[in-house]
């Protein structure tokens, strides 16, 4: 993710909009979030500028902090069964079930192409 932020930055400085839209398309597919509007792209650019502030800080020779839990001990649980056995409760949450199985569409439904999506959105509730 960080890399894409940097890539985008390089491109907003040097290249036209068209190339960004392919990366935006990829981001949308990965995150399943729609932000293709002018507003959405502006927001994205602002977010990139905001993140650029990270480069101002010199972090040479400093260990990265990867978790705010850095000084906490990771709790180790005993290997005894205390969970499970609530199939009925869980299955109630699903719209469609068959004999204690969750029912889902076969495989992933691919995100429609850009052109199809805009016409879909016109008719959606959003």
């Amino acid at each position, binding site marked *: 993710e960080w890399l894409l932020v940097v890539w985008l930055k390089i491109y907003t400085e040097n290249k036209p909009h068209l190339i960004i839209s392919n990366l935006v398309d990829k981001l949308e597919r990965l995150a399943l979030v729609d932000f293709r509007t002018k507003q959405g792209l502006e927001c994205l650019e602002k977010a990139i500028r905001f993140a650029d502030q990270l480069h101002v800080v010199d972090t040479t020779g400093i260990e990265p902090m990867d*978790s705010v839990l850095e000084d906490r001990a990771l709790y180790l649980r005993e*290997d*005894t069964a205390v*969970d499970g056995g609530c*199939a009925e409760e869980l299955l109630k949450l699903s719209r469609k079930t068959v004999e204690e199985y969750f029912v889902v569409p076969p495989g992933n439904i691919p995100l429609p192409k850009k052109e199809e999506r805009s016409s879909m959105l016109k008719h959606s509730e959003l």
Partner: protein
Amino acid sequence: MAASRVTANEIFLNIKQIPTRYPKALCLFRQISTSRPHYDQQPEPKSKSASQPLVGVVGLEIHAQINSNTKLFSGSPVRFSAPPNSLVSFFDASLPGTLPMLNRRCVEAAVMTGLALNCTINKKSYFDRKHYFYADLPAGYQITQQRRPIAVDGVLTYSYFGGKKRSQMIRKSVQIKQIQLEQDSGKSLHDDDRSQTLIDLNRAGVGLMELVMEPDMKSGEEAAAAVRELQLILQALGTCQGNMSEGQLRVDANVSVHRPGEPLGIRTEVKNINSIRYLARAIDYEILRQIDAVQSGRAVQNETRAYDSKSGETVPMREKEGLQDYRFMPEPNLPALIVYEDNASLPTGIDPSQAVVVQKIKDRLPELPGVKRDRLVQTYGILPEHSFTLVNEDGLMEYFETLMKTTQREPRKVIGWVTNELLGHLKQRDMSVSQSPISPAHLAELLKLQETGRISSSAAKQVFQEMWRSGGKTAWQIVQEQELGLVHDSAQLHSICQKVVDSHPDEVHAVRNGNKKVLNKLIGLVQKETKGRADPVLVKEILQQMTQ
């Protein structure tokens, strides 16, 4: 996707300019890995001269289900078959508000496995999220260890029978890149008729050890031998039951071909391999397929293929949606996993149930297969090849050791019966040692009859066959019933020998003139008369006397 690929290339080219302006970007670039070590190449150009032959390059990715009572991050039971979704907790179903709770047994299992494979145990390792969308992964991500796994840089040594006659024991080793802890996904059952998929989350969240092996292997045979050895080790440790058909041990093979010395070729990933036998076949098929493609000037595609056991071929699998970007990120709900070297390095006041101590686990390591084999060679004086076979076949070592307790014969004389006769019969009928109709006690009796000269070696083999078929009759019973006992009665033998000598004057003449080989023919004739029951030593003596 072509447009974005061009863009990606442009970016790669511009990356060279980055170091001066954005030194940190290059570091970030290395952290995120969407593609794996092998890199895409143009298809091999046709070479005018046939240089070295194309050889296979095989790397394995193995997922071993941890043998624990509960799952990796939840207290749901781990069981092979159970009613669908009955072994699922709220966390496993990824309901909001639930958090992962690491199972200590899984950490110990990973450390134990790492130690047995000569790995360096990382005292500090991290958990990450690997994102992708699929219905059997309710959270939309898998918790794994991408940045820093629990164990790295190990070695697995294995052996197999190779050479021209498959009688030479060849020792090889393969580097283990890393062992990481990760969650298993649920199971999807595809119902094509109704165009739907049924999801069972019983398996979702079960602890896995992913073992990544370097591409040090060259063929299906080597890979199969390596996996067999790993299976034996895991079973000896008790960290994984290693049953491939039940999905406890899953192996994916990365296969490519190249000419030695040249860069590696494009690799394919082969999945859906359910047994060690199929593993060897799938890899060998794939190597041949790729060699054929390269030699015909066709490009090998970087794809995932499935092994079809019925046809013995690999076929392309359902295409993934382009290059996957897993968007790895640190798991925010879990701090780093710390394991301690020994009791001395434990922080004061720590609860013992909260500390995994590597030294303690090292002390508890059971006898590994390699050590077992050496012990057998030491104790019984048998050849390494023999001990390899004993340890390789489930239950054979126990059979042999039980047999040795009841027989007085030398181990070297007994081992052949176990590794050739017994094992041969079992293999022919695809039976396991536990199903053998001949028990060690009965076999011991047969060996005693042979040793005390009651029956000849060839008769002994006959009796063995009969014991197998009759399933329960003792050796002595069969010897009596079929009159296979050796005849030692010298008077009887004398008269038979005399008969043979009298009826074959030419042969006797030849022997008298110095042709000793003809004596064997006479011996053979005597044996024929006695239906192989004559004591061969006596017969030879008598005939030698008679032909002087």
